[in-house]
């Protein structure tokens, strides 16, 4: 199949993913909106008002707790939804066996992967925009570095889409796609500096926190929105790029060998 045909195939998967997201919006778009609204009410308005200033922003302006956690909450929603979209969608395709529609077609493995990752990134984007809009009801959001914000969003969504793809490839039953989000993703997100500044942690927890990749994504995204970060941006980008390349190679290798897909 030529390059144009491959793009048509990729676009077909991405379009099908978007249609699925919109068809079951009450399962894909509504829950993060409700959850994040509760986070903003409880942690932002009720508890946050007693915490006070978290950092000094650009020009020395104080950053309130609710402002501080807003970027982390948006990033948390993006990560969880990019991951959740690809695991549930690709595993369903495996479970109902309609993944075979793609496997018997001439489209290359990279187009299958790119199509599903595009779908996951688009769900992350939709949810991110919804949570951003909700946050505007509770606090002011400035876009100090829009390119940093957008690139961090994109890299984080791709990383967790690729991780979700690996999970879906190996999953044999629906329980297998719930284990990683529950026991790995959620703890890492909560410990990734969404609700607190890791610099305030005592040793060795401060150093251990730096092993958590989500810390870098949350802080880079926070830098894009607020202009402040607890970590060096260069490290954040290096780590995110390394994850994208490493996971991309892993996914392609799994697809090429047909792991979990071809007997």
């Amino acid at each position, binding site marked *: *199949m*030529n390059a*144009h*045909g*491959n793009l*048509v*195939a990729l*676009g*077909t*998967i991405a*379009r*099908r993913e978007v*249609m699925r997201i919109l*068809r079951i919006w009450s399962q894909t778009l509504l829950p993060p909106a409700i959850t994040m609204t509760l986070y903003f009410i409880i942690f932002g308005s009720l508890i946050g008002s007693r915490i006070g200033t978290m950092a000094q922003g650009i020009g020395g302006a104080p950053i309130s707790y609710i402002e501080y956690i807003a970027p982390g909450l948006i990033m948390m929603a993006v990560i969880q939804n990019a991951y959740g979209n690809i695991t549930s969608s690709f595993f*369903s*395709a495996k479970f*109902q*066996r*309609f993944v*075979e*529609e*793609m*496997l*018997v*077609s*001439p*489209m*290359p493995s990279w187009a299958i992967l790119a199509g599903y990752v595009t779908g996951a990134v688009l769900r992350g984007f939709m949810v991110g925009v919804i949570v951003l809009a909700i946050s505007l009801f509770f606090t002011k959001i400035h876009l100090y570095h829009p390119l940093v914000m957008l690139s961090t969003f994109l890299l984080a969504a791709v990383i967790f889409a690729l991780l979700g793809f690996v999970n879906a490839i190996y999953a044999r039953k629906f329980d297998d796609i719930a284990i990683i989000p529950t026991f790995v993703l959620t703890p890492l997100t909560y410990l990734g500096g969404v609700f607190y500044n890791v610099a305030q942690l005592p040793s060795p927890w401060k150093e251990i926190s730096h092993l958590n990749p989500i810390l870098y994504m949350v802080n880079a995204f926070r830098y894009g929105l607020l202009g402040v970060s607890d970590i060096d941006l260069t490290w954040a980008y290096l780590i995110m790029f390394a994850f994208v390349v490493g996971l991309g190679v892993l996914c392609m290798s799994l697809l090429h060998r*047909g792991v979990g897909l*071809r*007997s």
Partner: protein
Amino acid sequence: MSNAPAPVPALEVADLRKTYATGVEALKGISLIVQAGDFYALLGPNGAGKSTLIGIVSSLVNPSAGDVRVFGHSVRSERSAAMQMIGLVPQEINFNLFETPLDICVNQAGFYGIERDVARARAEKYLKELALWDKARAVTRTLSGGMKRRLMIARAMMNEPRLLILDEPTAGVDIEIRRSMWKFIEGINAAGTTVILTTHYLEEAEQLCRNITIIDHGQVIENTSMKKLLSKLDVETFVFDLANPIDGLPTIDAVKLTHIDAHTIEVEMSRAHDLNSVFAALSARGIMVNSMRNKANRLEELFVRLVEGNLGGTGKEAA
């Protein structure tokens, strides 16, 4: 003497072997050739290796050894070109039950790089031909079993394949729908598409297919033309329904009669034997035959004998 190059076969399978991770040896060196334009039967009992063979041809199963070529393109080294030629109707329902037939067909075309406007026109054409157009926008899980089977055929036609593989496409489908499906597939074959069929309805294979391979335990046990295979059957068994009950069985030379019940007897005889003489002998003893039928269709009888090892197979490739 003609210098024209030999036509490229639709499918060439050479010494194909497959051993699963569980240690099960599903294919033990299968070789066969399906010529372009053929209507080809691939038969065998459950677990013979048919679905594994089809899985390897359609790249859903990785072979352990051997090669498969589709119109000259190797499934291993030229997968994309080979898959472009194939349409697959699998044994199990394998589409998204929450999508509509129209979306399923249009998306399938998209996976082959076909633009949406072309795909929509094709989907309409095939859904109409298979009497599914009025269900084009229904959710597929609400379709009947026969409709789901026809949808899988429409989906397989979206890339207008040169080789259509049908893996038990009529399983569980009523006779009326089955006949309409065969009519459609016969039309596709007449238009030039090579068709490979696996089915447990052997009378259909006998009616539709020109060449046949029977496999069992992962090996080819017969590979010839349908005509040659059927000519091997030298004995036929008929069931006679009698007008009046009988107590005992008469004796007729070179014919074996078996008493089934008071109104029914089985008549086993050589194909060379004259049926008129059987009727005359029965009539002379006051036994009137109301109706008669074959106990099993001819291919079914041969199939059972081959699989049970009661008839010598050639085990050779078809010409």
